[in-house]
């Protein structure tokens, strides 16, 4: 089955990203296809490459990047939400005159249409939030 995932909250503050990650991993193990993971609202903060979490805790950003690489996942950060919150890729950096880009490996920034499209194409949409 084709599943689309939406994540509304950032890393560490809420369990949403943890739950979504464990759900995604379990779905892949069961042989399902994850057609897209869409990061919206504060969820865009899962895609920053600037975190250095405590060594005795999980590294939320890194394990999303790794899961994406291993399974060719499409991790999409909403551009409108990202602009409000300071998540920037090379293109956004140049367009908006920012001093740096901070998007982690395996994530890409795109529009809200990607969420709607995922909801149309997938068999199920599952949302993790606050």
């Amino acid at each position, binding site marked *: *089955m084709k*599943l689309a995932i939406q994540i*509304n909250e950032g890393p560490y503050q809420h*369990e*949403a990203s943890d*739950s979504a990650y*464990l*759900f995604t*991993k*379990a*779905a892949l*193990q*069961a042989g*399902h296809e994850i057609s897209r993971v869409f990061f919206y609202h504060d969820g865009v903060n899962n895609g920053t490459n600037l975190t250095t979490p405590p060594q005795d805790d999980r590294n939320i950003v890194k394990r999303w990047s790794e899961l994406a690489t291993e399974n060719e996942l499409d991790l999409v950060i909403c551009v409108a939400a990202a602009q409000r919150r300071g998540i920037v890729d090379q293109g956004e950096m140049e367009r908006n005159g920012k001093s740096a880009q901070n998007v982690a490996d395996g994530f890409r920034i795109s529009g809200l249409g990607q969420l709607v499209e995922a909801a149309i194409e997938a*068999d*199920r*949409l*599952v*949302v*993790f*939030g*606050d």
Partner: protein
Amino acid sequence: MSTLHTVNKSPFEKNSMSSCLSHSVADSAILMIEDGVYGAIKNTSIAGDIDSAVKEKSIYVLGPDLKARGLNEDQLIDGISVVDYAGFVELVCANDKVQNWL
């Protein structure tokens, strides 16, 4: 058509559990995850509502979230089933759609 409902907040903190219970039709599946698992416990001030719900809906609780919070199966209201993440995925697939009460 059938719906899987998820609830991720403590019923003592937020209205999402109660809203889920009153907006889910008979034969729906309800899965408690994250802080929602506190709703599955016996002898609480809201256990009566869950007891009634168990009679006409299928109520599940996510085991890993239950264990994280120091809770175990003995403390569950009768009729609630424990699932793991694989079971969560199965519930999503077995129902036609998902309503996440955030």
